[in-house]
């Protein structure tokens, strides 16, 4: 435990506690907080990983690089598929999604306990949305589970490559371009903010002087200093923007647009 941690480890402020007045899962295991959603998430992870191992065993190829859980074949459409022809994929996706959502709700409970804002689970939910869009929403829209990506290292990589070329030139997808812009801006602003703090911490006894030095540098360098609070807003919203654009870029491919080259000269 960290020196100050004891004061913060207080029971209460959980969902079950609010509903029933008593929460059986309100405890810590080592440094990890459990909670109802921690239990749900852990169970989903164990079952999902178990199914993963069973499936890999049934496919027979344990090679770390070649082992693959393929998405269902096209002929099964949106229905359940036999275990070896996509059923394993469907099961793992279900349990993975449950575990992700439970993790987010667990983060909400921890925020409530620590009396913080819910920004972190909000951002995490956006990250989960990318998974949900790719594996659930878009396949539903396209009309078959085969549109999801294979669950494996090589499989998902080749899926990304082939999906890009399936729509001719994915770089010309405007949402993709905006998402890439978001990613590159995020990386740049991240390095800038890291440089700012690492450049000025412990350079003066007075932290207000350090903050002034930060402001002054940025004003000299680029004419504007967004401020200590502002930079975190910028970073947060850049990440938000990037994820939204990513969701949109894959959601519109294959559904609304099937040729991103033709998109720019449709007539």
């Amino acid at each position, binding site marked *: 435990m*960290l020196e*100050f*941690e004891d004061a*913060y480890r207080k029971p209460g402020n959980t969902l079950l506690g609010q509903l029933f007045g008593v929460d059986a899962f309100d405890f810590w295991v080592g*440094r*990890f*907080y459990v909670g109802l959603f921690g239990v749900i998430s852990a169970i989903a992870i164990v079952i999902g990983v178990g199914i993963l191992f069973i499936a890999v065993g049934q496919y027979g190829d344990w090679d770390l*690089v070649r082992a693959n859980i393929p998405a269902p074949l096209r002929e099964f459409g949106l229905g359940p598929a036999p275990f070896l022809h996509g059923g394993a994929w469907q099961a793992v996706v279900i349990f993975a999604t449950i575990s992700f959502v439970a993790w987010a709700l*667990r*983060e909400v409970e*921890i*925020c409530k306990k620590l*009396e*913080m*804002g819910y*920004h*972190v689970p909000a*951002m995490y939910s*956006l990250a989960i949305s990318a998974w949900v869009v790719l594996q659930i929403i878009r396949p539903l829209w396209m009309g078959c589970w085969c549109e999801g990506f294979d669950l494996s290292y*090589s499989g998902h*990589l*080749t899926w990304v490559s082939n999906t890009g070329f399936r729509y001719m*030139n994915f*770089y*010309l997808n405007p949402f993709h*371009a905006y998402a890439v812009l978001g*990613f590159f801006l*995020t*990386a740049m602003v*991240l*390095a*800038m903010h*890291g440089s700012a*703090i*690492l*450049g*000025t*911490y*412990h350079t003066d006894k007075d*932290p207000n002087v350090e*903050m002034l*030095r930060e402001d*002054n*540098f940025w*004003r*000299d*360098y680029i*004419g*504007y200093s*967004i401020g*200590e*609070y502002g930079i*975190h*807003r910028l*970073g*947060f*919203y*850049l*990440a*938000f923007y990037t994820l939204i654009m990513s969701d949109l870029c894959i959601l519109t491919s294959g559904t609304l647009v099937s040729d991103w080259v033709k998109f720019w000269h449709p007539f």
Partner: protein
Amino acid sequence: MATMLTGPRVEPIEPFEPSQLDTDDILGIRAGVPFRLELLREFKVDTQLGTIWLGTWGLLSVAFFLAGGLVLFCAALDQTGGNLIDAIKYFANVQELPPDGLGWFHSPRTGGYWELNILCWAGAILAWAGRCYDRLRRHQWRPYLLYAWLAAISLTSAIWIWHPLLMGTWADAPGLGLNSDLDWAQNFSVLWGNFYYNPWHQLAIFFLFGSTMLWGMHGATILATGGEASHHEDAEIIDMHSGSHKSMLFWRWTMGFNANPKTIHDWLWWFGTGTVLASVIGILTTGTVTNDWYVWAVDHGTVAQYGAITRSAINQHPIAYPAIIPQTGEYVPAPAR
């Protein structure tokens, strides 16, 4: 404009301590009247716009940048037949393609525009690095920002200069222009055996997505504890208060690991700069270590193989002629031309 450069020296709202490095610069002036944009208060960011330092390095950088922009504008007019409206409407399609082979002083349409533009913008980037160094020294920062900028320069120069030099042709560099840059990304990957299988590219993507993830995490954490002044990070590094405590405990309880107000910025800096550094290695190893990343990946066991690989394809054999019809095994030579 006149007041900016020739008017009386205006004091910014917060005083700058005097510095010899400021007065030594002949083109150095802290320009602009600090202007408060109250709208920004709605977004909870700093409201002061300006002043900006116009130093020798900065002005040099801007001059080079504008010169390059002028070259691009000339190319745009050239490619739309002098029609200004079309030049703006089809700006994304303007392309300055590099010349084939090495060498300078090609005529404009066969690579001259590209060369001139590259020289101008290379000057701009390098001058900006000089500005970065100058300002970091003046404000007595540790030079992390300079290293990050130099890393970015190393990537840009690897793509536009070092890799083409290694390959012996400028034509392997991107053209200048929106669509031609995007097309380059596609074509470069197709030529070199699909960049998804380049392990340095994979590492760079890990850092890139990780950067966005870290911004989501760090930004959200600070905003969530903002009421307890966790955003005064320099102060929190010296002496932590409840905001930092909660930030650290949130992550410790969630995932079993936490940074502290100082080390999280190490993570941030290394992920941001790591993206660029991994990319540089990925570009420089292309065409040198291997000319087909998929074949490399199969050979080094990092990807499953989807069917047989046509290794002969990377040995300078044209694919249309001659070819072997798989079913009959018949060898079909090229017809006489």
